[in-house]
């Protein structure tokens, strides 16, 4: 398989995974369905497609609502990181000394903060009715940006920085073509896409972690309302199968499969956008 075919294949997988996530999110019901004692903890063979939880609710609703919780915040977080990385890369190529120094100071300071601790502080300070995944994801994106900026700036530096731009100007290319096409699309694309996809994945994992810890402590989640279920709830149900042998293995496998889909989507984005 040549490189172009491989990129198209991985790109298709990435789009498919993103489509599944958005499809699940778009079809998610606003509230959980009622309990059904006759269908408690039954497997996929009895209730299509994923079986039920210990209250007889379909696990499909968990998958849909969990996707809705993470879809928009994770995509926005990815876009923010992509924007920061692009800015750092372009700044290095443009050779604007003061902007480059300013961005490096930002990277040094923000990059020195332990992300999850800052997220916890922000979460605590948010008013109760603002407590969704979105502000947490945006905070995470800003905190994750320095790593992406560092790599993008280093890539631009290896490219030749301002000298590369000068060489292209000598060929008569316009500034728009140089910065958008030659620098960003052809050379920074791989770094930007990979960093953005990784931050999207981190936001999903962060949501799962925060919701799981809240659910295990019987507390309200920071990321969603009490009448919706996150993917963490699937892992929590599945954990009871591990430690208490309740018949909820299918919940664990569905939770892990969803995590696997997110990982696959991230890897697919990375491979689809890799440099030639």
């Amino acid at each position: 398989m040549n490189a172009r075919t491989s990129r198209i294949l991985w790109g298709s997988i990435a789009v498919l995974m993103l489509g599944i996530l958005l499809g699940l999110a778009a079809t998610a019901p606003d509230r959980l369905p009622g309990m059904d004692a006759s269908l408690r903890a039954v497997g996929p063979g009895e209730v299509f497609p994923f079986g039920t939880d210990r209250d007889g609710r379909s696990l499909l609703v968990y998958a849909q609502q969990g996707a809705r919780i993470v879809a928009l915040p994770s995509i926005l977080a990815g876009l923010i990181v992509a924007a920061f990385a692009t800015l750092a890369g372009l700044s290095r190529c443009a050779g604007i000394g003061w902007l480059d120094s300013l961005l490096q100071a930002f990277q040094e300071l923000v990059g020195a903060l332990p992300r999850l601790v800052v997220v916890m502080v922000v979460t605590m300070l948010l008013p109760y009715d603002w407590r969704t995944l979105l502000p947490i994801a945006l905070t995470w994106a800003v905190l994750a940006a320095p790593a992406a900026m560092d790599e993008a700036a280093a890539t631009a530096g290896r490219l030749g920085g301002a000298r590369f731009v000068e060489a292209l100007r000598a060929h008569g290319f316009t500034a728009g073509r140089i910065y958008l096409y030659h620098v960003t699309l052809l050379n920074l694309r791989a770094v930007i896409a990979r960093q953005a996809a990784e931050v999207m994945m981190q936001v999903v994992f962060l949501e799962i972690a925060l919701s799981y810890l809240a659910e295990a402590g019987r507390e309200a989640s920071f990321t969603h309302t009490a009448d919706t279920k996150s993917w963490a709830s699937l892992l929590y149900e599945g954990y009871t199968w591990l430690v208490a042998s309740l018949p909820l293995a299918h919940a664990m496998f569905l939770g892990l499969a969803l995590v696997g889909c997110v990982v696959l989507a991230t890897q697919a984005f990375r491979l689809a956008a890799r440099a030639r």
Partner: protein
Amino acid sequence: MPWWTRPLVRFAAAIALPLLIPALITIILWALPGSPAEIICPREICGSGTDELEVHFHLNEGPLAFYTHWLGNAVQFDFGTSWRVAAGMRVSEMLASALPATVQLILISMTLVMGASALATAGLLPRQLDPLWQAIGLLPAVILALICAAYVTITYGAVSFDGWPGTLRLLFGGLVLGVADGTLGSAIQGTRSIFEEEVKQRYVGIAVLRGESVLSNTLPNVMPALAGQLRGRVLHMLSGSVIVEVVLGIDGLGQLVWDGTLKQDFGLVLAAAWAYALISSALLALQATIEIATAWYVRRSPAIPEAA
């Protein structure tokens, strides 16, 4: 850019960080709509405690008074008492008792990561295993920690926190922090690639011909990059320790931050966040010191005997 610019920026950042954290919190508190005390703990949850909170933290005197009072006390390690997590207990005592567990956790995971990186650089860890570390690293810390917690719970019971089960939780915690979220895979590949690139340099070949060792020639030149990687990894582990400590029931700083956030214990969370900022500052200062020491060592002129 002169060689000392980067270490200088790092020292400046190390000094600024402990001032920045409470400043950021102050800005957020006063930027959000509503009174800061109501934001920290709404009246429907804390009742009259909200007014006490306002007076205790000088929130009613404006942002500058709050910031200066808090920071003035913090530099004397006086964080007051816990509000809701362990009402009445001194926060400094809570931090002091939680810190050793977090430090142990980080030391265990760093031993694992640095040991594996050293083995990989020395060629003792087969390159063929790289995909394995990368595959394990794809798993999020919460899932790996859950698997470990399930093992301890099934084997020793749900309330096994002392003795060997307690030690096992700590070891598993260090293991999870060391391998999850790509830590081990990127450490092995990162360290190995830094050395491999350096070994290709011409001066190394000449040094080998002179009978000198590769390591003694390359190490000073790669030290700044290694120090940067080390700081990044410790910071990543500190961040991940919140999840690992809560899932595995380890009483560390991360557990305190989590409990404080859940119970809106403002004083505790602010103090714990400041403790993290101090650790991060220390790491920045360490990296800057290593960079300066390396620069001096590398630039030291060899003694040239005077011509007769």
